[in-house]
């Protein structure tokens, strides 16, 4: 989703790409003609109101023996009325380890600086603990693509090139920031000192910087600062550079906002959004129209701030912003797109494809109180207990970092999951998970979460932390020539770590990252 001018923008729904020239009132389906049945519009980039590219990925109806990558690049110079499509052969670095589930995931990122120079990042399903992928580059407007061979792509995430050589990449499990000054051949980690007024934080999120020209740009950094058991809060610091990102200084700070998932910079204006499902309308027995409270915060170069809250018909979360200035922009709620022209005082649903979904034959019944009779329990809600024996069939999830206590409560209420994985602290090759404390463990167990305690620790010397062009980079810490002693030592450490978290358990899991057995 991107607002290019006040009138022109695009939005992709997975399988379709839409174009508007009237600010979202009407949308035209400009999806490139797909060659495969389950093809998806994976990523889109438009340079202006006419020139753009789309990266298509054919799902799983391909024959992996014939075509193990199946990406197609489409380019247009007439706002999607016509597309030319190329199907480059892309080498899958995981295919030498041929095993189901490894290989390109289909998630991609795309960007251009001018009609000729562009880049694409293709994510690879490699490991939970890392973000990896391949970067491709074009210098002829996308007719031919070259897989970068020189460098070691540090992660496979959102990127933004300012010039043909100078670009940024942000995200990954640790939400970090990298810069390249040689068109993507090499990348350097960028870290900024935390301003003292931010105080203690649970996590730092670097966003992509926004540049007005080669030299002058802004970089929003979000710090999670909420109390461990209280509401999630975010402090957003806007850093500024005047020398192409070589030095940054704090420009503005917006302290202790409610939890922020995304922000944007437009016309030197910092814009951040907070969304939360409106609990007024969630009264247990009655399901009403999905509503979400959306709060938009702006902070200008003159330090003037605005804060507007509105109720919108959505049950999504504000995961993406695209603003042209303080007043005018879009928010992607993951289920719908809303537009504002007054800095978030009011919002209009501008989702594409709305009219196309009139066909569905499912509609809401006006009667919403169903459970007429209860046996064994009272009330008109179903309560499902998670207690009982510690070994029963359930769905769960794992994430690189533990969500906050309020986030875990929201997911206990609304998701089908009952179990969460925690990476025990203190292991080699592990990482610091700021939220994971004894207080957190106790709180989420009381919410009802079952926990899978996992020790990452030493890895096989044959395991690749990442593979670039068939060159394997092993993990920093590997088993020695006496793996038995290593294992016993690690087990003792894992037990101590779990006790320190207050986990009462008879089971601990050891994480063994993937390796190819025949190479050992």
């Amino acid at each position: 989703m991107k607002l290019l001018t006040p009138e022109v923008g695009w939005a992709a729904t997975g399988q379709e790409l839409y174009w508007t020239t009237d600010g979202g009132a009407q949308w035209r389906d400009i999806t490139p003609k797909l060659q495969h049945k389950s093809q998806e519009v994976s990523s889109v980039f438009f340079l202006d109101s006419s020139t753009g590219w789309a990266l298509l990925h054919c799902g799983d109806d391909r024959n992996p023996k014939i075509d193990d990558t199946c990406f197609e690049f489409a380019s247009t110079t007439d706002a999607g009325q016509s597309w030319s499509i190329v199907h480059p052969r892309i080498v899958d670095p995981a295919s030498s380890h041929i095993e189901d589930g490894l290989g390109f995931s289909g998630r991609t990122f795309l960007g251009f600086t001018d009609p000729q120079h562009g880049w694409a990042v293709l994510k690879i399903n490699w490991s939970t603990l890392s973000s990896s992928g391949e970067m491709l580059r074009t210098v002829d407007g996308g007719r031919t693509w070259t897989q970068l061979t020189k460098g070691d792509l540090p992660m496979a995430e959102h990127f933004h090139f300012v010039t043909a050589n100078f670009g940024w990449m942000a995200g990954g499990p640790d939400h970090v920031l990298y810069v390249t000054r040689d068109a993507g051949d090499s990348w350097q980690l960028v870290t900024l000192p935390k301003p003292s007024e931010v105080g203690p934080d649970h996590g730092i999120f670097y966003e992509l910087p926004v540049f007005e020209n080669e030299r002058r740009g802004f970089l929003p950094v979000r710090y999670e600062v909420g109390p461990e058991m209280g509401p999630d809060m975010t402090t957003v610091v806007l850093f500024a550079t005047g020398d192409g990102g070589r030095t940054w200084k704090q420009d503005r700070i917006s302290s202790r906002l409610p939890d922020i998932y995304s922000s944007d910079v437009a016309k030197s204006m910092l814009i951040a959004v907070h969304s939360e499902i409106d609990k007024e309308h969630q009264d247990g027995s009655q399901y009403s129209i999905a509503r979400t409270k959306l709060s938009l915060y702006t902070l200008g170069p003159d330090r003037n701030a605005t804060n507007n809250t509105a109720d919108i018909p959505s049950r999504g979360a504000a995961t993406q912003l695209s603003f042209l200035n303080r007043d005018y922009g879009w928010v992607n709620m993951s289920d719908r797109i809303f537009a504002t022209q007054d800095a978030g005082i009011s919002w209009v649903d501008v989702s594409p494809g709305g009219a196309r979904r009139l066909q569905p034959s499912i509609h809401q019944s006006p009667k919403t109180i169903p459970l007429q009779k209860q046996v064994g329990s009272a009330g008109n809600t179903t309560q499902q207990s998670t207690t009982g024996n510690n070994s029963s069939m359930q769905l769960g999830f794992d994430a690189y970092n533990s969500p906050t206590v309020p986030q875990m409560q929201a997911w206990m209420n609304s998701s089908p999951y009952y179990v969460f994985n925690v990476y025990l602290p203190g292991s080699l090759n592990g990482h610091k998970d700021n939220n994971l404390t004894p207080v957190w463990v106790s709180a989420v167990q009381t919410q009802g979460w079952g926990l899978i305690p996992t020790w990452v620790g030493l890895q096989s010397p044959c395991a690749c932390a990442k593979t670039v062009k068939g060159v394997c980079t092993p993990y920093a810490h590997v088993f020695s020539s006496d793996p038995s002693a290593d294992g016993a030592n690690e087990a003792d450490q894992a037990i101590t770590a779990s006790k320190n978290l207050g986990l009462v358990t008879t089971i601990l899991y050891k994480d063994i990252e993937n390796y190819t057995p025949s190479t050992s």
Partner: protein
Amino acid sequence: MYANPAPINSDISQISTIPDDIWITKTSAATKPQVTIWNQGISDSLWPNKQRIHQFLIDQAAVNFGGVPLSIDDDIIDAQIVPGVNGTKNSSSVYSDISCPGALTTYPIAINDMNGTAFINGSTNTDGSAQTGTIVGQYQDATTYLTHAYRYSGGICSVIDYSDAVVTWPSGINNVGQVVGHYEDSAAKMHGFLLTGSKFSTIDYSGASATYLSSINDAGQIDGYANVPNLGFQHFLYYAGTFYPINYNAGINGDATVVGQAVCGNTDCSYEEYLAPPSWTGPNTAVPQGPGYNLFAVGIDNDNDIVGGLEEAGDCSYSCGFLFPPGSAAITIFQYPGSNETEVYSINDFGQIVGSYSVPNSGDVHGFMVAPPQ
């Protein structure tokens, strides 16, 4: 131990004292997640006894539940963990009607976890309706009165009749998109079928005069029954080309736990049966039952929630639906608002239950989905 199948097979399963429990990471395409602990690249006979976790999707970005987007991997757990305490999930119930365009009656028989091509997340559809799993069932055309098998996905009903059949009855769908059921041929004989993609294959029990397939899980395990001359009805699990005798069949989940009915004295009652390798037999327990009930369990999800239908002398004299969450003392009984005849057929991992209800004094039958927690 958390590991990929190749290291598990060649190294971890070979050490003298193998780990107590195994967490297999074998990701599938997000368009076809395999929410099961079996058939994941290591022998089913290894770690067979509630000793498995399967990480079936990784790197799912901005999955949204309750307005909170998180980047996650998905797991199904049937192993030792650290249990939570006092946790409850509250689900308010919402009914949505399901009917195919131009249908006189629509029966939604089975539902999976796939919203079109994606694993369901907590967002609504663009029209504000709740996301639903992909549904298969039967509908009767109001003009021709012909009965058709359908698949409902992304708001569209598509006919999936088997061309060699007189009538096609779908009864189960998994997250890989495979559909099972039975069909009647031109000689009025019933055969089991498996529909993968657009390809039908016939699965018949040896020597049977009729074969019926009930349900399929993501490991490709199918439960069903067959009428065999002189032997009567045979219940079976069909897996990797072999029929294993079982006691009950109607629904199966990713743990190969099956549910089904039996006759208990003067009433019908229901059981769940925990199948495990290598013989795919196992213990069973009864679904709690009140006096005088006829209880028909038909579906089970990966949290072991069981759904089905109920008849008794009172309000449910025609039929009600029931839900039995694992560990509960009793079943929860429900009736479609205003109806006196609610039939329930299937539940998915998001708590979405599909069934049908009759409109009193009209005889019309409509399909419904009762929505999950949002």
